[in-house]
Every structure is written in C-alpha cells, then in structure tokens.
C-alpha cells in the first residue's frame, strides 16, 4: 500500500461491521488491534518477486449479496446438481448463499459451518485456534489486513475418532469490486480424518479487486486431513493466499493438493509445520501462468518432529508473457532427528516471453536427517514436437499433449478425484 492511496476501511467501519455480525468481543478486539498495526507492518517479501507496487487496497468492503441467492450456474459447474450435493457451503462476496450438510455429520459432532456463524455458536472453540499458532495477525501487513477485515470463510471441526467419509466442499466466489478476506479454519482432533475441497472463482466480468485468503489446518495425534483447492480468480484480482498447516499430532498427516490457476497476480504461500513425532506432510501443486500475470508460489515444510517426513512436488506451465517463481523450502530444525525432506519443482515454458524460476532450498540444522531436491526449468523439446507432429498431430495438439504429460505426474497423483477432474478441466481451458 502506497501512502497516497486511500484505504477503503477505517476503524469505525470495522467496529460497525463486527457489531452487525454480532461477533464476540475477542474477535472485535483482534480486528481493531490488527487494523491499528496495518500501517506499521511491512508487506510480505516473497523470495524473488517484488510486490511493493501491487495495489492491495483497491477494493470495496460492503457486500450487497442476498443470502437467498442460491447456487449460480458457475458454482453448479463446480459442485454438480443439487441432488448430488452432500456437504457444501457456497458463499458469494462473503455471504453464504447455499448450505447443505448431510445430517449424519451433525450426529457425529462434526461442525461444518460458515465462519460468521462459527464465531457466534462456537466462540470458545474458534478462539482457541483462530490465528493463534499456524499464523499470526502481525506477521506482515497483509495478515494484519486479513485479521482486521475477515468477511467470509468456513470452520470445520472433526471430533476425536470421527472419520468423515464424504468430502466436504466449499465454494467461494466473488463478483465486482468486492474484496474477499476469506478465512478457513480446520481442526482435526485425535484419530479423525476428513477431506476438504475449496474452490475460489470470480463471477461476472473481471474487475480490479483484491483477495486476501488465509487457511489454517490443525492436525492432532494420528489424524489425517486431505486439503484440496482450485484457485481460479480473474486476471484483475490481486491475490494473497496463505495456507498453513499445523501438524502437531504424533503420526498426524496432512495432504495438500493445490491447483493454482488464478489469472491475476498472485502471491501464494503454503507452509506446513511438522511438529508431531512421525508427522507427515505431502504437498502437490499444479500451476499455469498466462497473459502478463506475475505469480510467486512458495512452499515451506518446517520440521520440528523426530521422524517427520515432508514431500513437495510442484509443476508449473508458463505461457505468453507470464512470470512465475517457484520456491520450495525444506527446513529441518535442530532435534528433528531422522526427519526426511524431499522436493521437486519443475517448470515448463511455452514462449520466449514467459519467465519461470524454480528455487529448491534445503535448510538443515540437524545431522541425522535425509533430504533431497530436484528442479528444472525448460522449454518444450523441439525433437518431441517433431516426433508428435510426424504422426499427423498439429502443433497445437502436440503442445497440448506435452503439457498434459508434463502435469500428469502431479495431477494423476492428486488424492481427491473431484479435484483432479476439475483441474483437468481448468487446465484444458487455460492452455487454449
């Protein structure tokens, strides 16, 4: 945020907003103190991408969406028809417009509700985790902005020993100048397991705005969380998305499957803290850059637990004049004996103007560990193209086959079938 732009929200607005939503005192206080910190804090500094001139203030805060809107056709494309839906929360501009939760979940004590309801109905439980450990409001200017302005999101709580069979889905759409400050909080208690899938989309025309997204996932002893996401904002949306995993439990597991398909400038951070002994994190990401967009995808896995294991696999395709930086950091702290950290980053560039960079980093502060990395940045091999075309396949189709082939090792391994299918569709659309 530069000093000459006027910030669209002041303390009064935040206080009133919180009051209108009948929020508990702790959240109102957090909002106010976060807002006070915004100016003093600096923007985050994603490695190798300069964002100081990105305008994170160009948005409108007031949502005029009616809660009875229901599912739009765009959203139905992501969820299937209503008869097929078992567990879905759909929000537009922060307002929940559709909610359907299989009654069996409630009987098991699972909470799956929008964040606005959660802070009222489960205030203590939300407070215990909300921006407490996985992420803090005062990390940088954007996390502070996020805490001050949260206006959408979901809370998912899975009690001890509950294994949720059906995937729980959330769709967050935004339209117009509305700035989305979406917060997802997932808590998986001991011996539980759950799959959560989220979609971010722009509805209507591409209009200059901002999305500031935070997800926190807490995984307790022997619990397992599958987290799938397909981000698909328009070319005019500037996105800051920070997904954090706090894997504190012994033998706890967290699987990330992220389809990073935004068309606008994007800073995406995904950090997993492996604290529990024998904890495990698996991160798979697929990205496509096009147009003039600038993106930075940073994945961190930070090992504290003994025998913790972190796997990172990132594949990206850059076309036209897109620029993307892929940072992968495996950090093994002192005392995390027998930890293992592996990472692979691969970037395929389709044009002379595309820019891509893969930076694998291993930071190891413990002797008794194993770690490895691989990275490559390359163009389409002309000999491969010749081979495919020599069978009558057009240049365009040959490129398409090579791109699909390049992304297949990640896409085919995604643990959530519906995310895989959605991604294949989005890839198809974005590549052509």
């Amino acid at each position, binding site marked *: 945020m530069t000093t000459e732009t006027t910030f669209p929200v002041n303390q009064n607005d935040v206080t009133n907003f919180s009051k209108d939503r009948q929020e508990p005192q702790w959240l109102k206080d957090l909002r106010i103190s976060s807002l006070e910190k915004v100016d003093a804090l600096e923007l985050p500094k994603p490695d190798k991408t300069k964002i100081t001139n990105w305008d994170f203030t160009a948005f409108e805060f007031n949502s005029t969406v009616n809660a009875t809107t229901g599912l739009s056709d765009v959203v139905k494309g992501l969820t299937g028809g209503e008869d097929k839906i078992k567990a879905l929360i759909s929000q537009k501009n922060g307002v929940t417009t559709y909610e359907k939760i299989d009654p069996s979940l409630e009987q098991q004590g699972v909470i799956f509700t929008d964040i606005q309801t959660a802070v009222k109905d489960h205030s203590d439980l939300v407070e215990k985790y909300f921006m407490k450990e996985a992420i803090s409001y005062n990390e940088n200017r954007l996390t502070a902005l996020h805490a001050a302005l949260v206006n959408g999101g979901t809370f998912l709580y899975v009690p001890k020993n509950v294994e949720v069979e059906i995937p729980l889905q959330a769709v967050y759409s935004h339209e117009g100048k509305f700035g989305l400050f979406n917060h997802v909080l997932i808590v998986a208690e001991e011996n539980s397991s759950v799959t959560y899938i989220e979609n971010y989309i722009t509805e209507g025309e591409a209009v200059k705005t901002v999305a500031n997204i935070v997800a926190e996932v807490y995984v307790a002893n022997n619990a397992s969380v599958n987290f799938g996401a397909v981000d698909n904002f328009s070319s005019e949306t500037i996105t800051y998305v920070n997904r954090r995993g706090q894997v504190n439990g012994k033998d706890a597991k967290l699987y990330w499957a992220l389809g990073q398909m935004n068309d606008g400038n994007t800073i995406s951070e995904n950090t997993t803290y492996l604290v529990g002994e024998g904890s495990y994190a698996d991160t798979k990401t697929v990205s496509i850059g096009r147009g003039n967009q600038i993106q930075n995808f940073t994945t961190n896995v930070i090992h504290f637990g003994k025998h913790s294991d972190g796997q990172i696999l990132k594949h990206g395709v850059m076309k036209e004049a897109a620029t993307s930086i892929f940072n992968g950091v495996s950090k093994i702290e002192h005392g995390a004996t027998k930890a293992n950290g592996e990472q692979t980053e691969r970037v395929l560039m389709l044009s002379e103007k595309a820019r891509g960079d893969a930076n694998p980093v291993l930071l190891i502060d413990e002797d008794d560990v194993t770690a490895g990395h691989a990275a490559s940045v390359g163009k389409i091999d002309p000999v491969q193209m010749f081979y*495919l075309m020599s069978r009558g*396949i057009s240049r365009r*189709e040959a490129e398409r*086959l*090579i791109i699909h082939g390049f992304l*297949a090792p990640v896409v085919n391994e995604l643990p959530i079938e519906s995310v895989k299918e959605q991604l294949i569709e989005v890839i198809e659309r974005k590549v052509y």
Partner: protein
Amino acid sequence: MSTPSLKVEDLHVSIEDKEILKGFGIEVKGGEIHAIMGPNGTGKSTLASALMGHPKYEVTKGNATFNGEDLFEMEVDERARAGLFLAMQYPSEISGVTNADFVRSAINAKREEGDEISLMKFIRKMDEKMNTLEMDESFQHRYLNEGFSGGEKKRNEILQLMMLDPKIAILDEIDSGLDIDALKVVSKGINQMREERKEDFGCLIITHYQRLLNYIKPDFVHVMMQGKIVKSGGPELAERLEAEGYDWIKEELGIEDETVGQE
C-alpha cells in the same frame, strides 16, 4: 485412387552449416519396396529426417514432391496427414501421454472433426496390430516410449505405422539393436501392410545390414556414399554387398572416403 509417389531430386541438406546430403535423388511409388544401404556416416539417417522435416536439418537445394505436392512447403504434420510416415531410429519419449491416447490422437488428426474413430473400432484395431507384433497389452497404457527398451521402441514404431496406414513409409534403421525374433516380428508387420495395401503402400527401408532384407524382399536396392546414391540395382545387389562388403563399389567408383565427414 492414384498410386502414391515420393520423388526426390538433387537434394542437398545441411546440419549446422555442414552439408550432409549432396545431390540425392530417388523415386518411390506405391507397391514398391526400396532399400537404401550404405556404411555408417554416408547420410542415410539425414535423408530420413530431412524428408519428414526434422527441425535440425536444413534443405539447401533440390526438391521433393509427395503425390505431386511440394514436400518442403508442407509442415511436418501436413506431411504425415498426406500419408508420409517415418519409423525413427531414436523415437522420443513423452512422459504422461499414454501410447493409446497418442495413437488415437494421431488417427483422429487425419479425420474430419465429428468423424473421429469410434472407441470400439480403435480398440479392435490396436489389439489386432499389437497381436501381430507380439506386444503385451500393457504397452497401450504405458507412457509413450518411456522406459521402453530399444527393441520395444522399434516395435512401437511399427505399431504406429500399422495403425496410421501411411502411403509411403520410411524405415530408418528399424533393424538396429533387434534380435532375430524381433526382426521377424517387425518384418511380419511390414509384409502384412504390403500384402493388404498393395499399390497403395510404398516403403523406403534404410539399413546398414542386409539381414532385414532376408525378411522383407526389396524391389530396388541403392547404395549411398558421400551423401548420394552411387549405385542401384535389384535384390541381388544386397546379396553381393552382404557377401563382399562395400569395398568393391568404392574401388569401382574410385571413392576413398565414403562418408560425408561426420564423426
């Protein structure tokens, strides 16, 4: 339908400014099998790659027509769709693309939109051809040439040839690295094409050894040295080369170094 024809005249081809082909000429028609033989380094594989349009090779002089059309005015994929096929010595590996998907894309590339080959028809044809070539069914679902042995890649090239029904096929050292059983199988595939397609299928076989020609009987045999054909004849020429080697030709023509100076 008129008989297919590939006609090459006075072809000069360079790679990185070094001239490899120096005035090569040939005409291959449907129903004919031509064999081009010659020692290593005489430009045989350059010929194959240049005719298909490999990006590394530059045609500097001469012309080629395929069914009367200027071959060098056509893109690689257009040449293929017109019915030219090259079975490559070193086919590329394409990760993430299955053999079956690839072949189906290639077949459909030749057909009009809305007239794609039906899945059943495709599967039947693929099964039948793989059977002929004694290939395991699993090859359909493996990534294109990825992790294939040399022999498996060669069989896969012939499989594509049989699936795509080209009018003129160029086989670039398809016999290199094949054991005798594999050689027989590959030859069976070519001979089947020849029997079924008759006047509608011609073949240009590039080989270093005569032994492939024991299984695929050529109508014409050409010897290549110094980037062009120096001698042509019938099948008996191949037999003499097998028995006596190339030295007698060099002597007859007064050639000291038969290569084009490649390493």
